[in-house]
């Protein structure tokens, strides 16, 4: 399977949970619809075309930096015709110093273009992690032919918990219920409870019996979301 690997990092990130209104909470890590948006920005795909254009994308995500959530207050401008309330404070949750490794499988010519744009640092739109003030630095890593690992017993990317029987170990496991697919209206239509692990502040593998195929890429066993 033709596959491209790149890294995305920023000082901050916010992947907003849609069911919160003014107190914006964030998911623990980047999720497939957000990755599609990021790739859409690099390729310059209009947001109205993104759903169709990215329908055959397969995405793997590795969380490289320890999860650090924080909350601060922002002042928002009131848009209601209230007579004396101009701005009001809202609590905003965000992630600090996020870094991800993204694995992408797509049509070869699309991957060619993505590879060229990442290599030449020529994204069409400015890539960011969730909100426009968290501009992302993208670094191209590699292009390879990923193959299914036979009888894999560990995974280095985020993986839905229902696809792995975890062997407990000395790692810290992070989990969150993240969106994995969306529709034309940009609404999330499916969620998965995913897992990833850290040991002493470094990303590490999760060991266990896998119930789905994972692909080998540069020594990483990667689960792809379709």
């Amino acid at each position, binding site marked *: 399977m033709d596959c491209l690997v790149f890294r995305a990092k*920023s*000082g*901050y990130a916010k992947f907003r949970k849609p069911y919160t209104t003014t107190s914006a909470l964030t998911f623990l890590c980047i999720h497939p619809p957000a990755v599609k948006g990021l790739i859409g920005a690099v390729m*310059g795909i*209009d947001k109205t075309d993104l759903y169709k254009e990215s329908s055959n994308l397969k995405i793997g995500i590795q969380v490289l930096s320890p999860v*650090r959530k*924080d*909350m*601060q*207050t*922002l*002042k928002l*401008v*009131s*848009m*209601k*015709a*209230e*007579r*004396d*309330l*101009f701005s009001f*404070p809202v*609590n905003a949750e965000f992630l*600090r110093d996020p870094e991800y490794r993204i694995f992408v499988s797509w049509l070869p010519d699309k991957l060619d273009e993505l590879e060229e744009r990442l290599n*030449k*640092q*020529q*994204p*069409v*739109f*400015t*890539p*960011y992690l969730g909100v*426009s*003030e*968290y*501009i*992302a*630095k*993208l670094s191209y890593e590699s292009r390879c032919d990923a193959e299914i690992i036979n009888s894999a017993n560990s995974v280095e990317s985020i993986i839905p918990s229902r696809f792995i029987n975890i062997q407990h170990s000395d790692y810290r496991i992070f989990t969150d219920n993240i969106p994995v697919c969306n529709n034309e209206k940009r609404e999330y239509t499916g969620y998965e409870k995913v897992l990833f692990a850290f040991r002493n502040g470094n990303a590490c593998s999760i060991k266990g019996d896998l119930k789905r195929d994972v692909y080998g890429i540069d020594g990483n066993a990667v689960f792809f979301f379709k």
Partner: protein
Amino acid sequence: MANTREYLLIWDSTMANPNGDMLNDNKPRHDEVTGQLEVSDVRIKRFIRDEWQATGHNVLVRTKKDEGGKVMSCTSLIKEIMKDSGVKEDDLPGHLLNEYIDVRLFGAVITKPKYDITGPLQVMWSKSVNPAEIKFMQGNSAYASGEGKSQSTIWSKYISPYALFKTYAVFNDNAAKRQGIEVSEEDLNEFTKALINGLINYRSTSKNQMPRLLVEVVYKEHRIDGELNYVDVNFDTDKEEVRDISQVTLDLEKLSRYYENKKDAIDTVRIYRHGSVRVENLLEDFEVIEI
């Protein structure tokens, strides 16, 4: 259309609260783990917008009071603009883009009529290079809070003695082209001018800052590095003990290397330099402008 470009501004804040967090007793925004202070994008844009307003530009995002002395909402502000200019709803986006420099550069979200403009110029949240101390201060004010008091009111606030920030911003010509926004070199000159002067001119009990170095990299062909973090900040003392710009040296070696490597793609590198900052490894090819 102005070319795509990236900015890195290095500025400092002395005995001030550069950006308070109301959730946290209005302490300066900070990262509790590293001790770095933080400043939101909208704080930086406010410096710029205030400067634009002071120099006679039209600014949409501002606090305006109606005849009754009440603060206007965005909706009523837009209504007023439509009434005064006689533009119809369909022509409103075009009108705002033509008339308001902050809409042209930073974008806008309007609720009634509903549409949004993505700003081609994005400003990143800033972090201080040094871990900065946060001090709690109290003092006496002149007046009592009400009648019959034997003592005047006590004020209290948090300030930070010294923090040196890096702020990154990017102007993306594609984002402008795709939305039919025409951004001129003149607009971007007004941006750098307002960025520098806005920081200098905005003074209050909580704000006291100075731009020290602004790097502007203008590209020949569309290109975005994503952080432009090529200026090393070296301190003469321990990072925690820095209190003044005279204890700081800015090293442009990485920027020079970036320029040499990407020469084909880079049109100009402009360095706006404050007189009191030491700068090393400044290339002759760079255009230097004194602040």
